[in-house]
C-alpha cells in the first residue's frame, strides 16, 4: 500500500473508533440522566390557544399545562381565553367543571358628551403616566383617561377606543375575559364580569366614589350613590359603598328594575331586546339566568 492510502485508512479507523466510543458513552449517559416528561403536558398544551396571555395566572400556555398535569386536577386551573377545557379533561381523565364565559366591562360613562373636557392633555399617551399628572380631561379623578393602555394590553384585539366617546369599547366576540386590560388599567375602570345568557347583563357604569354633587359636577351620567337601585333590587344584588353602587353579578337576575330607577342613567343593561318586549320577559327571566349564575358562584 502506498503511504497515502495508509494515511486515509488510519484516519478513517481513528474517526470510526472515536465515533464508536462516543456512541457508547452517550448511550449510557442518556440512560443515566433521562428526563421523564409527562407526555400529557404536550397533549394538554395542544388544547390551549397558545396566545400566552397570562389570563390563567401562569406565565404562558405551557406553564398552565405543566401546572395542570402536576396538580392532576382542574380545580382552580382554567384557561379563560378559549382553551378547550373539556378536551383537557379527557386527556387528564378528569371531569371538566362547567364554566361560564366572562367578559371585560368598561365601567365609565365619561364620554366627551357626558363629561366635557375642561383641559387638554398633550403628554405621553399612557394612562399610567396621565394618572400621575392630572385627574383627567373632565376632572373626574376616577374615570377613564382614554389613553388606551388597555388597548395595548389586549392580546386578542378585542378592545378599542371609540373616537366619538373617547372611551374603550369591548368587542364581545373577541374578548375572552383574560383580564389583561383590567390589570393594566391604573384607574380600575375595567371589570371582568359574567357574560350572561345571550350576553345580557346589567352593571353600574361608573367607579366614582365622590359624593353625588361632586361626581355630577364633572359627569352628567355619574353614579351619585343615591341608593335607589339598591332599594329597588328584589335580589339584594346591589350594594352602595363610598357613594358608589355595585351590582354583584353572581346575584343579579337581570330583571332591569334598577335601570329604570337610576336618576343619572349610570346603570347600563346591554344586549337586551328593545324595551317593548320587556313586560313578557320578566316571567321567564328570573328562572333562565339563574342557571347561568349558579355555576359561577361555585367556581
Amino acid at each position: 500500500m502506498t503511504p497515502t492510502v495508509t494515511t486515509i485508512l488510519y484516519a478513517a479507523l481513528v474517526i470510526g473508533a472515536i465515533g464508536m466510543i462516543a456512541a457508547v458513552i452517550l448511550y449510557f449517559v442518556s440512560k443515566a440522566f433521562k428526563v421523564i416528561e409527562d407526555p400529557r403536558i404536550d397533549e394538554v398544551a395542544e388544547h390551549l390557544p397558545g396566545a400566552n396571555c397570562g389570563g390563567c395566572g401562569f406565565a404562558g400556555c405551557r406553564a398552565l399545562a405543566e401546572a395542570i398535569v402536576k396538580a392532576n386536577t382542574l380545580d382552580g386551573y382554567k384557561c379563560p381565553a378559549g382553551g378547550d377545557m373539556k378536551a383537557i379533561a379527557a386527556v387528564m381523565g378528569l371531569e371538566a367543571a362547567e364554566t361560564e364565559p366572562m367578559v371585560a366591562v368598561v365601567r365609565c360613562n365619561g364620554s366627551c358628551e357626558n363629561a366635557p373636557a375642561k383641559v387638554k392633555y398633550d403628554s405621553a399617551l399612557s394612562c399610567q403616566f396621565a394618572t400621575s399628572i392630572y385627574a383627567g380631561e373632565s376632572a373626574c379623578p376616577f374615570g377613564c383617561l382614554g389613553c388606551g393602555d388597555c388597548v395595548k394590553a389586549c392580546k386578542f384585539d378585542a378592545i378599542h377606543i371609540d373616537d366619538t366617546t373617547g372611551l374603550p369599547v369591548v368587542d364581545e366576540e373577541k374578548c375572552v375575559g383574560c383580564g389583561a386590560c383590567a390589570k393594566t388599567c391604573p384607574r380600575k375602570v375595567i371589570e371582568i364580569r359574567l357574560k350572561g345568557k345571550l350576553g345580557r347583563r346589567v352593571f353600574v357604569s361608573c367607579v366614582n366614589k365622590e359624593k353625588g354633587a361632586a361626581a355630577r359636577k364633572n359627569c352628567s351620567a355619574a353614579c351619585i350613590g343615591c341608593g335607589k337601585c339598591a332599594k329597588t333590587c328584589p335580589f339584594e344584588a346591589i350594594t352602595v359603598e363610598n357613594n358608589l353602587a355595585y351590582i354583584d353579578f353572581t346575584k343579579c337576575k337581570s330583571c332591569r328594575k334598577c335601570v329604570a330607577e337610576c336618576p343619572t342613567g349610570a346603570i347600563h343593561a346591554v344586549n337586551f331586546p328593545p324595551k317593548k318586549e320587556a313586560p313578557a320577559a320578566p316571567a321567564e327571566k328570573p328562572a333562565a339566568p339563574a342557571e347561568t349564575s349558579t355555576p359561577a358562584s361555585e367556581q
Partner: protein
Amino acid sequence: MKTFKIGGIHPEENKLAKEQSVEIFPIPKQVTVFLTQHLGAPSVPQVQKGDKVKVGQLIGKAEAFICANVHSPVSGTVAKIEPVADFLGYKKDAVVIDVEGDEWAEGIDTSSELKKDITLTKQEIIDRMKACGIVGLGGACFPTHVKYMVPPDKQVDYLLINAAECEPYITVDYRMMLERADEVMVGIEAMLIASGAPVAMIGVEANKPDAIAHLTKVAANYKNIQVVELKTKYPQGAEKQLIKALTGRSVPNGKLPIEVGCIVNNIATAFAIYEAVQKNKPIIETFTTVSGKSLKNLKNYRVRIGTCINDILNAVGVPEDTGKIISGGPMMGKAISNLNAFTVKGMSSLLLMTEKESKRGEVYECLRCGKCVHACPMGLEPYMLHAFTDLQRYEDCEKYGIMNCIECGSCSFGCPSNRPILDMIRVGKNKTGAMIRARK
C-alpha cells in the same frame, strides 16, 4: 468656575421678573389649607368646624416620622374640613378658613427688625424647625428637621445652600438674595449650629452677578459662610449636582447626601428657618414668581398659603394666548389642570406659557442621536430607559439605573424627535420602584 461634570443643558433663562421686588399679595376672604403640603404622611387636623383660629396657630399636627406641621395662614373661623381638589385635580383633605381680621397667635414676633443673636441650642433649633413646619422650599417639600437628624456615625462636613435657581423664569430666590440677605445669613448660622457643620457654602449661578456681589458683601461678616459662583448650567441646583460642583464629592447611587457629609437646603428654606428660629414664625406664606412671555404684569409675590390660584391669576390678568399654566419651573414643574386649587408650601412659581411655547411637537421615531445621553446629568441612557419602559421590561430598567433618574427633564429638552422621554421614564421609575419594593 465650579460646576458638575457630566451632562447638563442650557435652556433660555427667561428671568423676566427679576426686576420686580417682592410684593405682599392681599389676604383673601377665604383660604383652603391642605393637610399634605409636604413629602410624606398627611398631618392630623387639630381644629374642628366652627373653631376660631389665629395666624400661625397649629391646625395640622405631624404624627408620622416623615411629616410636617401645618399652621393657619390667617385668622378667622374654620368653615369646614373636607377633601378639596388640588392643582392636579385629586382630592386631599384640607381645612377651609373664613378670614376675619389678621390676628396673630401669641409668641410670634411680627416685627420686621433683624434679630442677629441666636440663643437656641442645637436640639432646640431642630425642634423649632419641626414645630414651625419647615419643609424644603426648593420644590420637593421634604420635612427639614428629618434632614438634621444626623445618624450618630455620620458627620456633617459641609452645609450647602442652593441659591443656583437654575430653573428658567423663577426669580424669587434671586429677589430673596437681594432683599433678605441679612436674614438668610442668620438662618444659615442657625442651620450651622443645628447640623454641626464647620462651614456653609452658598452656590449661586453666574447669571446673577449682582446677587453674588451683594451676598459676598453680607457674608464677609460671617467667617464660616462662603459664597461660591457656579457656572450657569441646568440642573445646577439639583442636590447631587450641587454637591459635586461645590465639594467635588459624588453621592453614591441610592444614597442620601449625608453619606458624603453634606446637608443641602434651599435659600428660601434658610429664610424660613430664620423666621422660625428668631421670630418663632411658622411657614404661612410662600414666595411665588408669576411670569410668562406674554404676561405684562410680571410679579414676585409673597402669598399666604391657601390663596386660590385663580385669584392670583386674576390679579395679574391672564393673557389671551396662554396655552398652559405651570406650577413650578418649565423644566420640572407640573401643569395645573385645576385653577380653583390653592397655594401650598414650596409653590415657587406660576408660569403662564404661551400657546406656541407650550405646544409639543410631533413625535418621531428615536434617531439614536445620543443627545439625551449627552444631556443626562446622572450619566444614564434615557432613550434606552424610554424603550424599556415601553416594552415593560422593568428588570432592564433597573439594570440601566432608572432609579437614579432625578427627573430634571434634560433628556426631553433637546430631543430632536420630540419624544416624551421623561414622561415615560417617570412611568418606568414608578413601576420599577414598585417591583423593587415587592421583592423585599
